[in-house]
């Protein structure tokens, strides 16, 4: 479709259409709807890792002024509970809570106090007394529990060729283990809800990434029809995966509302964000890489050991990147999980890629060093246009272009190949590179468009249950409607995040942009097609929307549309690709280091709005930098509680930590991916950043840092690699 002037259609770097509301404080997040008569719920958390509650004393709490109810397993509503041993956690999983006296991990919800005010609820929650019978068999120490690991029965283990043969053909072998700790998403908006139960009908203002799955989870947990549940998630203050599924505070709020007969607001505290929302689990990734002297890869294996909870199974697909990124005939990917008395982990931004690429791209760098090859050329030598894992072509793969263009921009030719040879005063300076890939799983998505004609102007309202979690959905959907209706973007209103609107796959997994925009496109195309058909106008005839409505003698018209992957889509592997470059300065005496600058090249299909796409990339880079510089949730090895319980102990990157960043988008439209040529970008940015930084640290210091995060003391204590000239 040709672009009409002044539409600010797709591709334009317009400001966010909802931006005014965010900078003036008018955007309404879940706990901000002024609901009359609401009361406050405060969750209570267990203080043992495994065992049973043997007594509960609620009397002191109940005596307090303003307290309406203390809910524990003894008086809780009966809910649907899990069937089978450790069912897999999914975005639409039920979320049973307070269903027995059993405690499965430290911090699990064991009660909820409902009171007239927040202060009353908080104080009362501290007065409810629990006594436990503790089970000493709690599994809380990852290092000491490796013998308990099992192979998950989900078909994730994979091999092609023959690893032993590949290794025997190799001139050089790298065998190393890379460790990443438990990390938490920590979106700035605390998970929250205001929920009401009204004669079997539920309304929840809730901070959720996928509205439809929140509906399924609530209806499934309470065993009520889906049609009786409405979820509103108009603004989501960050998600990063933690709001993909429905967490138990929403179930607690609905249950409490049913019991007290008033709407109940529950806000998860920042400390509870560690134990009662998702997390990324600890991964121990063992890599074996074999290569010929000329840099040809002969073998690659990627073994991941991580943990799940005792109640649900989650396995992060760390080995995904190793299956498809390079041209290696012999390949093996395996997984093992330790069931631990820690909460169930779940997807955090680029699950699999963010952590898996740290291991793979570190190992690739180690191999390049051993082969005395430029790590950039080593990667390019092993490029492939065929996804050897799926045995099918990539719809488009511009990884080599990403690497070369990024190298030019970054000044890679100035890199000194010998570590510790670029110095400035006390600083050791290093350059690092890594390659990135992220699956682009476009999904079926619906939209509605409502056209209104008044005084020679058409205004369009696009509705869908999709969400904007900071990703720019409002803006790119408005631009899509402007493009396909050929009206100025100022005449488009976008309404998101309400389960009364047409169903989308929601925001997550980098599928949002492609799914939402193609859904909106289909609705707009259907509207125009129908209006033309009704008046026997040829479909390719150019008629302005105003005229079309007039010819139809309509002032209002509504159409819906649905878009879904084509048969062609299934024949290809569809990934976004990228390259990361970083420059790191390390103080040789203190181990303090600074990321001085970064260059990122992204090949992510059609860029709908470079301004919001840039935001996605720098956001990913920032979180990726966080993996290296600070982020780590510590488990206390005797009691199983997290000893990082706030932003004072769980450090995330702040403004001063970040460097100037240049982002280059490749001009690309992947029409195999979908009609608009869009691929995912939300998770591409975080992928392999960690390796790019640690590879730069190696280039600066000659030290291989294989265990994240890298604190200055770890860096000081680490030994220089064999062969590095000091």
């Amino acid at each position, binding site marked *: 479709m040709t672009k009409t002037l002044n539409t600010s259609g797709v591709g334009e770097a317009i400001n966010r259409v909802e931006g005014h509301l965010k900078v003036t404080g008018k955007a309404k*997040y879940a706990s901000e709807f002024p609901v009359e008569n609401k009361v406050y719920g405060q969750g209570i958390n267990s203080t043992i890792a495994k065992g049973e509650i043997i007594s509960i004393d609620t009397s002191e709490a109940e005596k307090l002024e303003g307290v309406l109810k203390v809910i524990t397993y003894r008086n809780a509503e009966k809910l649907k509970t899990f069937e089978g041993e450790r069912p897999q956690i999914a975005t639409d999983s039920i979320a049973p809570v307070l269903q027995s006296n059993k405690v499965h991990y430290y911090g699990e919800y064991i009660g909820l106090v409902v009171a007239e005010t927040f202060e009353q609820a908080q104080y009362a929650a501290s007065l409810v007394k629990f006594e436990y019978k503790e089970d000493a068999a709690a599994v809380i120490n990852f290092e000491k529990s490796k013998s308990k690991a099992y192979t998950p029965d989900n078909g994730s283990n994979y091999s092609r060729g023959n690893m032993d043969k590949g290794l025997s053909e190799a001139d050089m072998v790298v065998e190393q283990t890379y460790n990443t700790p438990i990390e938490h998403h920590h979106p700035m908006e605390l998970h929250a809800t205001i929920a009401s139960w009204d004669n079997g009908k539920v309304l929840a203002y809730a901070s959720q990434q996928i509205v439809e799955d929140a509906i399924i989870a609530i209806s499934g947990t309470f065993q009520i029809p889906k049609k009786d549940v409405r979820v509103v998630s108009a603004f989501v203050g960050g998600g990063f995966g933690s709001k993909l599924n429905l967490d138990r505070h929403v179930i607690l709020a609905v249950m409490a509302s049913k019991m007290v007969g008033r709407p109940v607001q529950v806000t998860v505290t920042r400390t509870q964000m560690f134990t009662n929302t998702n997390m990324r689990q600890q991964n121990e990734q063992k890599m074996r890489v074999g290569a010929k002297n000329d840099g040809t890869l002969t073998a690659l294996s990627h073994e991941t050991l991580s943990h799940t909870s005792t109640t649900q199974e989650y396995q992060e697909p760390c080995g995904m990147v190793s299956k498809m990124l390079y041209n290696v005939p012999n390949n093996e990917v395996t997984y093992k999980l330790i069931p631990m008395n820690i909460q169930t982990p779940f997807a955090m931004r680029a699950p699999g890629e963010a952590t898996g690429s740290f291991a793979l791209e570190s190992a690739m760098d180690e191999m390049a060093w051993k082969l005395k090859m430029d790590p950039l050329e080593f990667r390019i030598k092993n490029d492939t246009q065929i996804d050897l894992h799926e045995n099918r072509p990539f719809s488009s793969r511009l990884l080599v272009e990403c690497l070369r263009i990024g190298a030019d921009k970054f000044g890679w030719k100035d890199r000194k190949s010998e570590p510790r040879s670029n110095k400035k005063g006390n600083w050791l300076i290093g350059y690092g590179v890594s390659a990135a890939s992220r699956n682009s799983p476009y999904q079926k998505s619906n939209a509605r468009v409502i056209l209104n004609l008044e005084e020679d102007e058409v205004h369009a309202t696009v509705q869908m249950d999709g969400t904007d979690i900071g990703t720019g959905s409002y803006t790119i959907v408005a631009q899509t409607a402007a493009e396909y209706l050929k009206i100025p973007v100022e005449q488009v209103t976008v309404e998101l995040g309400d389960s009364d609107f047409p169903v989308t796959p929601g925001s997550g997994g980098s599928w949002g942009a492609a799914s939402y925009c193609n859904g909106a496109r289909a609705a707009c195309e259907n509207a125009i097609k129908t209006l033309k058909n009704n008046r026997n106008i040829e479909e390719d005839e150019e008629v302005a929307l105003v005229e079309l409505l007039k010819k139809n003698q309509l002032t209002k018209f509504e159409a819906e549309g649905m878009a879904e992957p084509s048969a062609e889509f299934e024949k290809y592997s569809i990934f976004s690709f990228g390259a990361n470059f970083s420059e790191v300065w390390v103080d040789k005496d203190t181990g303090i280091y600074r990321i001085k600058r970064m260059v990122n090249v992204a090949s992510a299909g059609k860029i709908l709005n470079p301004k919001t796409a840039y935001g996605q990339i720098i956001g990913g880079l920032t979180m990726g930098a966080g993996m290296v510089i600070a982020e780590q949730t510590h488990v206390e090895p005797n009691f199983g509680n997290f000893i990082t319980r706030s932003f004072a102990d769980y450090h995330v990157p702040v403004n001063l930590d970040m460097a100037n960043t240049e982002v280059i988008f490749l001009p690309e439209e992947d029409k195999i991916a979908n009609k608009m040529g869009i691929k995912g970008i939300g998770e591409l940015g975080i992928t392999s950043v960690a390796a790019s930084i640690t590879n730069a640290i190696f280039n600066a210091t000659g030290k291989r840092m294989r265990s994240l995060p890298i604190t200055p003391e770890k860096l000081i204590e680490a030994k220089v690699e064999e062969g590095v000239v000091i």
Partner: protein
Amino acid sequence: MKNLERWKEKIELDDLNADEREIFNQMGMGKSSRRKFVKKVSAASLSIWASSYFSSELYANSVTDFSEKPWKLLNAVKVNFQVNDTSKTLTLDSRMSLLDALRERLTLTGTKKGCDHGQCGACTVIIDGKRNLSCLTLAATCEGKKITTVEGFASNGEMHPMQKAFLKHDGFQCGYCTPGQICSSIALLEEAKNGEASYVTEDIKNFQSDLKLSEEEIRERMSGNICRCGAYNNIVLAFKEVHSGDDEMPTWEFATQEQMDNAKNA
């Protein structure tokens, strides 16, 4: 739905506050097109356009202010303060933070709760000209004070230059830390004028007012406001524009066809 109708009437009567008027004006909706627009808005979308007036069948009444609701409060305290040039009298629980008083009693939800521990900066407001963490400020200590929240910066239907700069430079994504970032930024303009030193200030002996802050100074002084979406670079650019007139834009570009060809054929 009665409230929805009432809300629509309110708009048609042009009874908007300055911010709401600004939002509609920025959207290119003057008085007449605004009226047209409102007729087309569905119930749920009101959340987006007119935050305080959400209406639903499930809740009998919407309210804008809970200031005088007669709760049975423990150790109730009466406090008077000014919020965004309006005098407010609240009878509140002595344990209530200023943050909760703003959000839960005055429905000024622009000020955000990000940690409730003074560790993230989302709740930053300006109290008597200085930036402060409202989650660490007991409301009862605010007697006679003048508080400005993110809702209070627009005047005469015009956003504050800092708000405009955040919008232009995309200094946010999800928007949840944004009110705190903007309050911090606006207060920081004054701190620079007053010559206040920071952790990274090299020369603290020679006092100077009207400081032109370096990028490192800006980053350090904005490091009390966490943005998990990672919009830091754009926040710095937004601040620079207002602080020093620097009009640098975010550093993204598209590769040229020549670059693509060279890369492919290298």
